[in-house]
């Protein structure tokens, strides 16, 4: 018997309409755990770099985490993996909600989709009965609307639905997949779903998920639940409220937005409004939130209430979480009422709440600069709020300038030309980032920005405080019950870290210490992404309930796989390297690994070089960021190094190839101007 996992994947060929239930190899679970880990292996095995994002051979994988569907609190992530049309790299966006446990209860660990359906369809998984159904009546419908229509027509109110909106159907490069209160948004995975002609996946499951050693597992679960209660009652002192507690940033609860509105950038990640937050605004925004927010809500089996049901006046109800609360407001230099209103449309259309507002602000900046002209915006209203609604509509329909903007700021700027590229200034690896512009380089964040392959800072940071605490006493207090550290040396690093003087940024933590810290932070995110755990209870906050010391026990007693800290660390390193291998094969090199030029005002080129050199070496990568033969061998990834040698990415003497492979598509898209 298989424990925690079901041992079966669903293989769907949308071209031929073929459905197969395929048993998986338990050895792969031991090596790559599940979720992101096994997704990365499947992409490696079946999606070579020649496969274009919008090719029928590209796979779209909905992978549940290894522990999803077990009683482990907060373990509900679906990891959606494909090749991104925007970054042209392996994308692995995740969603919480209720989809992953439901899929497990239906008897599957993953749904793997290939091919393209000639007509718009949806997939209906009802335990052993799986069918591809016509979705022509859902064409153009909103993502939330679609879910409601399908549940009604199937008479299955308990089914869980992951659907795309108009943006996905029209292959917008930052289209999301929406699922109730959650969404998998980053990397344009909704565009791949649309390209495959798949409007939605609907799932209902009523089968058991088994545990290997139930008594042991439940004891761990009870400890976690107790610790969550403790942490909720005892927020961490000395850090801003958003970092003091557990869960995703509690944006639906918090009224005080002084920190975000005055420290994050407005418009196209340009303007800092240092004295924005006033008593009047605080009162007005609180009134807005209180009048629209119906209830705080949670994902499956989690007490954290990070989401909310939002009912803007005169508009349909939708669900929201986290920082989308402010992204539209700040991009449009508007107010919260506007932000919560337009987010309703954006959720139905299914677009990423980070990228979409920035793309629109970018377009308006180009207009102001005279690079885009009146002729590009026929019929656009004159007020800022109206312009954003107008632009959003053009983008998701790919009409006029919207067709260009729908590819995101990087590709749009290339196509528009005429100096537009300078306005696509907030990207890493062609992907829009959080609107942050800071003063002095932070070496830890530098490494995370450079080498993070989920290409979103919130998906690599966490665990280690973002800034030193002012006094030694505060630091000593903090490390007292810091049980989550993998090694006591992290406590010492933090104890010695000062705001000013010798042991302060950017030279302290030292380069070597930065490597250790970043590696720990990244490792925890990768473990979460394989187990299906919400980062909000694990890798993201300070002092989380799940950590490197209790995770091996969860895996051993839950999945029945012998696991200890060393073995888990090695497994995480293995599939983390496989993610990099997929991207290396797609041409990702050192030149791509850099934060936005203007992210920090004060930069230290020599230190930055040393940081990256040392971190690459530390990770077992060569100076181009390519995993070396030796490190691949050590992880049992010989097949990767063989492939690298065959492709000339590594040579027999293990020298880095200097060949810079710019894909054909990129060259093509770089030429030509805008046509409306």
């Amino acid at each position, binding site marked *: 018997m298989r424990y925690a996992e079901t041992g079966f994947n669903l293989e769907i060929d949308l071209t031929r309409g073929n459905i197969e239930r395929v048993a998986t190899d338990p050895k792969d679970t031991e090596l790559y755990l599940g979720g992101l880990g096994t997704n990365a292996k499947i992409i490696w095995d079946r999606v070579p770099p020649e496969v274009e994002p919008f090719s029928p051979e590209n796979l779209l994988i909905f992978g549940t985490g290894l522990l999803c569907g077990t009683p482990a609190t907060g373990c509900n992530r679906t990891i959606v993996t494909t090749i991104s049309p925007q970054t042209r790299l392996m994308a692995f966006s995740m969603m919480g909600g209720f989809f992953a446990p439901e899929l497990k209860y239906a008897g599957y660990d993953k749904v793997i989709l290939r091919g393209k359906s000639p007509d718009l369809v949806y997939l209906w998984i009802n335990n052993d009965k799986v069918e591809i159904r016509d979705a022509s009546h859902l064409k153009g419908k909103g993502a939330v609307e679609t879910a409601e229509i399908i549940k009604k027509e199937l008479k299955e109110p308990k089914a869980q639905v992951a659907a795309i909106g108009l943006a996905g159907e029209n292959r917008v490069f930052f289209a999301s997949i929406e699922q109730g209160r959650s969404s998998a948004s980053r990397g344009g995975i909704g565009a791949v779903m649309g390209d495959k002609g798949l409007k939605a996946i609907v799932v209902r499951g009523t089968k*058991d998920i088994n545990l290997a050693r139930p008594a042991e597992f439940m004891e761990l679960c009870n400890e976690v639940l107790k610790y969550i209660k403790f942490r909720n009652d005892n927020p961490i002192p000395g850090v801003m409220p958003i970092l003091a507690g557990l869960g995703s940033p509690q944006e639906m609860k918090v009224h005080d937005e002084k920190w975000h509105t005055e420290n994050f950038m407005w418009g196209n990640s340009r303007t800092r409004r240092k004295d924005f937050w006033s008593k009047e605004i605080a009162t007005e925004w609180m009134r807005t939130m209180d009048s629209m927010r119906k209830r705080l*809500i949670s994902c499956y089996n989690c007490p954290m209430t990070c989401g909310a049901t939002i009912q803007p006046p005169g508009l349909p*109800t939708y669900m929201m979480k986290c920082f989308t609360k402010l992204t539209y407001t700040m991009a449009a230099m508007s107010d919260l009422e506007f932000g919560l209103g337009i987010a309703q449309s954006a959720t139905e259309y299914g677009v990423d709440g980070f990228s979409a507002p920035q793309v629109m602000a970018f377009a308006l900046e180009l207009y102001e600069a005279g690079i885009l002209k009146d002729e590009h915006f026929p019929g656009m209203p004159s007020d800022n709020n109206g312009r954003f609604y107008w632009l959003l509509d053009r983008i998701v329909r790919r009409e006029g300038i919207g067709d260009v903007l729908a590819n995101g700021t990087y590709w749009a700027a290339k196509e528009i030309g005429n100096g537009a590229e300078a306005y696509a200034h907030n990207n890493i690896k062609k992907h829009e980032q959080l609107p942050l512009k800071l003063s002095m380089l932070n070496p830890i964040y530098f490494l995370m920005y450079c080498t993070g392959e989920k290409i979103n800072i919130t998906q690599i940071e966490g665990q280690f405080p973002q800034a030193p605490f002012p006094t030694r006493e505060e630091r000593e207090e903090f490390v007292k019950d810091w049980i989550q550290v993998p090694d006591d040396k992290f406590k010492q690093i933090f104890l010695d870290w000062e705001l000013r003087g010798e042991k302060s940024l950017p030279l302290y933590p030292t380069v070597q210490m930065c490597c250790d810290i970043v590696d720990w932070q990244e490792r925890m995110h990768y473990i979460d992404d394989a187990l299906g755990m919400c980062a909000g209870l694990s890798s993201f906050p300070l002092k989380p309930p799940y950590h490197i010391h209790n995770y091996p026990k969860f895996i051993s007693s839950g999945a029945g796989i012998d696991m200890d800290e060393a073995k888990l660390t090695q497994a995480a390193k293995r599939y983390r390297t496989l993610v990099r291998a997929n991207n290396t094969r797609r041409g990702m090199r050192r030149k791509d690994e850099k934060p936005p030029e203007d992210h920090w005002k004060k930069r230290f080129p020599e230190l930055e070089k040393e940081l990256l050199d040392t971190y690459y070496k530390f990770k077992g990568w060569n100076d181009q960021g390519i995993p070396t033969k030796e490190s691949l061998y050590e992880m049992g990834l010989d097949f990767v190094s063989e492939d690298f040698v065959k492709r000339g990415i590594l040579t027999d003497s293990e020298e880095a190839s200097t060949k810079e492979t710019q894909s054909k598509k990129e060259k093509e898209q770089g030429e030509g101007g805008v046509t409306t």
Partner: protein
Amino acid sequence: MKAEKKKKIIKTIKINVDKCNGCRACEMICSAFHAAPKYSSNNPARSRIRVIREPLNDMYVPVYAGEYAAAECAGRDKYTIDGKEYDECAFCRASCPSRGEFKEPDSGLPLKCDMCEGEEEPLCVKWCTVDALTCEEREEEVDEEVKMENIEIGLASMVDKYGLEKVMDTVARMSKKD
């Protein structure tokens, strides 16, 4: 004959729907506890508590499995509270032929909440850290005997309908049979 007072522990689960966050931890832990062996598997479809959820209509109502009903009611009920119209029989605890709730998904056998016998408190309550479910115990004195007045009320209505003589004849005939 005088009714005797007896002491009885009454357990009440208090359900505060305003506090429910819709996470269904109650369903999960219920199904895990009642698995055999205990906690060896979980499957919310086997749970003896169901959260009636309609997120977009802001409906979250935990309902517990009660008695098995062999036949459905002659009519059905439908509640509207605060402008929200709930499903037919939404609040009913019965495992009944009219619906799929509170039945084992494979055998169709009825399920019933047993307040997690042997545990300190029902586990759905323990796992509901947002306090939508809380448990209260109180001692009450209750009459264990059937009150004579109730029999009299019943007999009086029989007498009304059939006349005293027929009722007396029937009672006499019934007592001879035993």
